[in-house]
């Protein structure tokens, strides 16, 4: 990595990575809870409705993982271009994945 190249701040890089992971996790959880009724029932029991549990899990993952990654400083070693590409790819994949899942299953 070129030391002169512009870098993202510690928090920006860490939370970009955690946002990408939380976005992919959200799509995966939406599909798995549909395919596994026991998981959906468990999520219903946790917060009253599986949708509420999923939202809380997503937001908690985003903040908790972001804070952990920020502490390690590792995401700053990744080039900004790769972080932006990963976030964009996560958004596109997660969106298409959700729509395809509900269209096909």
């Amino acid at each position, binding site marked *: 990595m070129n030391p002169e190249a512009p870098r993202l701040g510690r928090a920006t890089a860490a939370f970009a990575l955690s946002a990408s992971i939380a*976005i992919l996790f959200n799509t995966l959880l939406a599909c798995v809870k549909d395919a596994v009724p026991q998981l959906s029932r468990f999520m219903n029991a946790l917060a009253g409705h599986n949708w509420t549990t999923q939202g809380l899990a997503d*937001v908690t993952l*985003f903040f908790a993982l972001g804070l952990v990654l920020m502490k390690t400083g590792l995401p700053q070693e990744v080039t*900004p271009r790769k972080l932006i590409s990963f976030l964009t790819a996560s958004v596109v994949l997660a969106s298409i994945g959700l729509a395809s899942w509900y269209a096909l299953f």
Partner: protein
Amino acid sequence: MNIGMSDVTLLGHAVFGIAGTLAALWVFVEALNAREENASRIRKSAAAAAISMCAACVLGGYWYLSFYPAEKAIVLRGPWPLAHTLFMETKEHLFFLTLILALYLPVAAAERLYANPAARAMVLCVALSIVVTGIVIEGAGAIIDHSVKIALLGSR
């Protein structure tokens, strides 16, 4: 005119959703021309996007859990059951994606965008993603709303 809690919650949800999308669009346009002078405006718009999306989530979530089951039954019996099985299901889960991006936007916008092209590119990417997914979600909401209308009109 009889305006119930369901109406206030649902319309509030849509209003905050649009406000969050517009705030993200504002961030995008300002970030295209990021300067020291508009840095504060970018941060305030990013915060407005995050707050609006949180409000849209709380109101939408409350309406979805409290009032939607009755409408869902109407939609599933009507001519457009896909409005629930595809559009509502996708919308309610896609929204979390928009919410996460909206929560991240103020973090990225806190950087000195006028001096850091990488941070500016990140803010542009996140803001644009919020705008696109926000429009898709609003569109899905309109389809669900219309499906209830045609189901009720068809049953008359």
